[in-house]
């Protein structure tokens, strides 16, 4: 009997992230007396940085290991880097915020690292067990993170809702996987695809049913209509830093697995899922944008906006060509910068016992906090898709992909939706600069780490808008061999 070969180098970035997660837990136990836990954040940053550096060294090579269950290809690399950037920014914005809100537990950073580990596994798994385990590692960590503010009823409620619905969605995802397994006898994505092609199982009811269940399971994670309803509640209730993490990281991870599974395991069913995803994309964009208009809480508004963004990304998913899939990657990266940036602004505008998350709290801060407002304006305009910001290029690629595949109506509906979205994004900007404040917001303390995150996010947003081709060519190289 041959022992399975184990190539630990292949998962070195994952190992580093996991090891630093445990290390943070351990250090916290030894120094449990210390009130200020920011040093744990710095340790996490070091770990994330190392993991990123290791991931970059693997660039250019495609290696599969662990009996073909895990692959380190360009696609995995792109997502690893995206997740690590997201984690890096999240940790940066968390250090001041957790201290302020009294949730500075050592576990906080460890859980962020574990969730990141889960995301990385999701993007790099080529076997459904790995993808499932990655997804659950991520989800369970985030259930806890969402309820971190134990004293806050809303945070607890958010955790409950996310947990119950998450477990519910997991049930469907699992059933979908079981049906695939039953129909094809394999859990390897490539084998599933080749078995379906060779036996011509395109009318197999079990596989079609599994398609439905997988759509529910992944649709939940990426917050697409009608599996989106948890999003606003959870985003509103969860600690803001975690909201940022969820809106960017979980969504990106959901897409990474969705694209990998659908394009490598079920390419034969593309005509089937294209029309469903078309509908879901339109519904997601429309519901997200329309309901965002009548929101009064900025976190909730951003939650609906994140639903809408999932819809835009689904447009590229429907298009499904090279430009579309690389557009998804580009979009997720750009979205990570602008969305974390926006949530950072939300965090910075609050203080202890006074979150200031109502949209009308933003009235008149434009001249009081010019840099903060300028940054917020950049992020909002980017999300609205105004050139020359990252969000614009992202939408440009996504919609051009749809046009290229002759999904004209989809592109038109997408552009119309973008136009609607300008309304609620600009409303905040207008409030900031052209309205008198209703009440004075004073005594804000800007944590230097969060400001650093803000600067990085601004740079990222501008970079992706002005120099889009670098990232796009990276994304285009990344998807080679995926389809």
């Amino acid at each position: 009997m041959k022992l399975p070969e184990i190539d630990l180098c292949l998962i070195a970035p994952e190992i580093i992230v996991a090891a630093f997660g445990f290390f943070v837990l351990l250090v916290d136990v030894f120094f449990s007396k210390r009130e200020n836990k920011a040093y744990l954040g710095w340790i996490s940053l070091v770990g994330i940085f190392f993991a990123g550096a290791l991931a970059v060294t693997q660039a250019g090579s495609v290696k599969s290991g662990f009996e073909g269950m895990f692959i380190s290809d360009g696609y995995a690399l792109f997502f690893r880097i995206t997740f690590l950037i997201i984690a890096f920014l999240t940790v940066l914005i968390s250090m001041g915020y957790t201290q302020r809100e009294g949730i500075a537990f050592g576990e906080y950073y460890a859980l962020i690292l574990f969730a990141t580990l889960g995301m990385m596994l999701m993007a790099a798994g080529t076997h459904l067990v790995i993808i499932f385990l990655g997804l659950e590692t991520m989800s369970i960590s985030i259930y806890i993170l969402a309820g971190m503010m134990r004293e806050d009823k809303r945070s607890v409620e958010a955790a409950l809702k996310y947990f119950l619905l998450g477990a519910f969605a997991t049930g469907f995802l699992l059933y979908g996987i079981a049906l695939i397994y039953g129909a094809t006898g394999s859990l390897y994505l490539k084998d599933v695809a080749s078995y379906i092609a060779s036996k011509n199982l395109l009318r197999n009811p079990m596989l079609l049913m599994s398609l439905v269940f997988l759509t529910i399971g992944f649709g939940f994670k990426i917050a697409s209509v009608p599996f989106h309803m948890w999003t606003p509640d959870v985003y509103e209730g969860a600690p803001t830093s975690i909201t940022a993490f969820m809106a960017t990281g979980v969504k990106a991870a959901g897409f990474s697995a969705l694209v990998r599974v659908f394009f490598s395991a079920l390419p034969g069913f593309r005509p089937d899922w294209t029309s469903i995803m078309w509908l879901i994309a339109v519904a997601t964009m429309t519901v997200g944008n329309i309901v965002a208009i009548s929101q009064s809480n900025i976190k909730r508004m951003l939650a609906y906006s994140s639903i809408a963004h999932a819809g835009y990304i689904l447009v590229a998913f429907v298009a499904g060509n090279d430009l579309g899939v690389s557009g998804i990657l580009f979009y997720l990266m750009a979205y990570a910068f602008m969305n974390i940036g926006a949530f950072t602004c939300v965090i910075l505008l609050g203080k202890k016992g006074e979150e200031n998350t109502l949209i009308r709290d933003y009235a008149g801060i434009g001249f009081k906090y010019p840099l903060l407002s300028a940054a917020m304006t950049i992020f909002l305009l980017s999300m609205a898709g105004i050139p020359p910001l990252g969000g614009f290029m992202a939408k440009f690629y996504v919609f051009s992909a749809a046009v290229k595949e002759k999904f004209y109506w989809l592109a038109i509906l997408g552009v119309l939706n973008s136009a609607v979205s300008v309304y609620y994004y600009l409303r905040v900007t207008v409030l900031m600069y052209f309205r008198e404040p209703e009440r004075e917001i004073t005594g804000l303390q800007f944590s230097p780490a969060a400001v650093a995150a803000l600067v990085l996010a601004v740079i990222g947003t501008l970079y992706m808008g002005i120099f889009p081709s670098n990232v796009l060519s990276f994304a285009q190289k990344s998807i080679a061999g995926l389809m």
Partner: protein
Amino acid sequence: MFEYVWLIPLFPAIGFVLNGFLGRRLGKGFVSWVGPSAIGLSFLTAIFIFFELIGRPPAERHFEKVIFDWVVSGNFRTVIGYQIDPLSILMALVVTGVSFFIHIYSVGYMHDDPGYPRYFTYLNLFVFMMLNLILANNFLLMFVGWEGVGLCSYLLIGFWFEKDSASNAGKKAFVVNRVGDFGFILGMFLLFTSLGKHGIWTLDFTEVFANANKLDPATVTTITILLFIGACGKSAQIPLYVWLPDAMEGPTPVSSLIHAATMVTAGVYMVARCNVLYSMAPVSMAIVAIVGVATAIYTASIGFCQTDIKKVLAYSTISQLGYMFLGVGVGAYSAGIFHLMTHAFFKGLLFLGAGSVMHALSGELDMRKMGALRKKIPITFWTFFIATLAIAGIPGLSGFFSKDEILWQAFSSSHGHFLLWLVAAVAAGMTAFYMFRALFMTFFGQSRVDPHVAHHIHESPKIMTVPLMILAFLSIVGGYVGVPHVLGGANHVHEFLAPVVGGGAELGKAHAGISLLSQAWASSGEAGGHSAALELLMMVISVVIALIGIGIAYLFYIKNPALPKLLAERWRGLYRLVYNKYYVDELYEILFINSLKSLGTGLWRGFDDFVIDGTVNGIAYLIGWLSGSIRRVQTGLVQNYAFAMILGGVIIAGYYLIRGIFY
């Protein structure tokens, strides 16, 4: 050094960011340093690059630096890239140099304005955009700069937006420019698609011009005319010149920089840049030349009767731009650019001088309330005097060489014509007249200054007068780089620009057979066929005409100040016509604005109220209502959410089921 061409636009961009974000916070001292030094640094960079460029043999004086890919989609690729060649570097030198002095001047001029940081923010942004326009290596980036300078112009004309007239002038400039830009965009698209038909999807200058011979003459003619409409808007030519006089509502240094020295010359630059295309389209060139010369004489005549010193200068600017278009229109691209350069010096100086006069007289603009300022503000007077001599075309100053080059080419080039020369020469005489009129009314004669103002007339501070002196120096010597051969000079400018704009006339000849019109047009025969004696004779004639203009001005405004009034009474109708700028604004008002307005009102009453408003309000209402009601679906109860998920799943499953049955 070429590799660092991106530094030239980068410095103003940094200045813009710093002033924009920190200017208000860090105060005037900071802004005063950052604003001018950003431009100074890019001026220095331009100088270094210039010297490296002239160190190379003429054939190798071309360099492109691609900063990054900008838009990549399918087989179309556009880069953000800058190119260095004699034309662009000359423009960059003029723009950064003149901007630099005007920035310094502005530090003094705008010192007490509350919008000081905002002013420098806009100004730096303007220079950044202008440099993008000039250095761009493709049409798209050029267009970005083109729109960008338009935006800055709008912002700066309306800088004192509290004044209604200023914000209206800004709007007018913006709207008129849009008309031109429409032409530019159409021209650009047409160029893009018609080259695309040959499989060349590009907007890169080098590639476009290399492949221009693939286009058929009619297409090129259409493209160039469309592009020229854009140039008319930006460079204030007939019939789109009406915004420029109103643009004088902005701060005077802005008028000097944007509305005299740099932005308004963008149209000339664009035509010169596209010389390959224009040389292929003799009809377009004829149109350019005729519009140019008509603008030159027409606005010069308006200059006769203006009493507002800045308005005189504004009409004079339009008139001089007309000369430049005449130059490029007859294929003398280098002459046009040469005049652009000298004009930047002396017209910039004239505006700054006017600003200095305003500064001395607490903001007075009306020349009827000036006079005898010669002794009181001597530096301003002498520099203004030099600039006036230069613009009048007095031999020895820069304006003489450049204007004469254009006049000679208008006469002798294969695209030229005797009539073009005649009109232009008369316009030159008129220029001399109204410029000296302005000079005499302002600095000579009896003082008509308001007594309240009179006692604190003072010379401007050094920070304003030094730029005046530097520009005066340039106005004198600036012409010596282009002394024509007939005067024993080497005409360096012409040779320097030759690699880009070619022999101009010769290129035109190669395509002369394309159109019958061009043959009819090329009346005066071969360019080389004229003797040096003829060229000298022409030169003397134009000087004489200029001197006649000056003489009349002297007679009217020094010798016998009552005479103009008498004449005005005698020919009251004519006077009033000219005084009111031929009622063109009113004509436009009736033709376009009112008719559009009444059309608009009609549409608004009939159509808009019911259909559009109904639809828009309806949509807004519908979305609001939808937003409110879809929101209610979100009950907050977990099980409803789970139910929605199940429902979604059932719908998808149902879809697959139906699909399975029917396919």
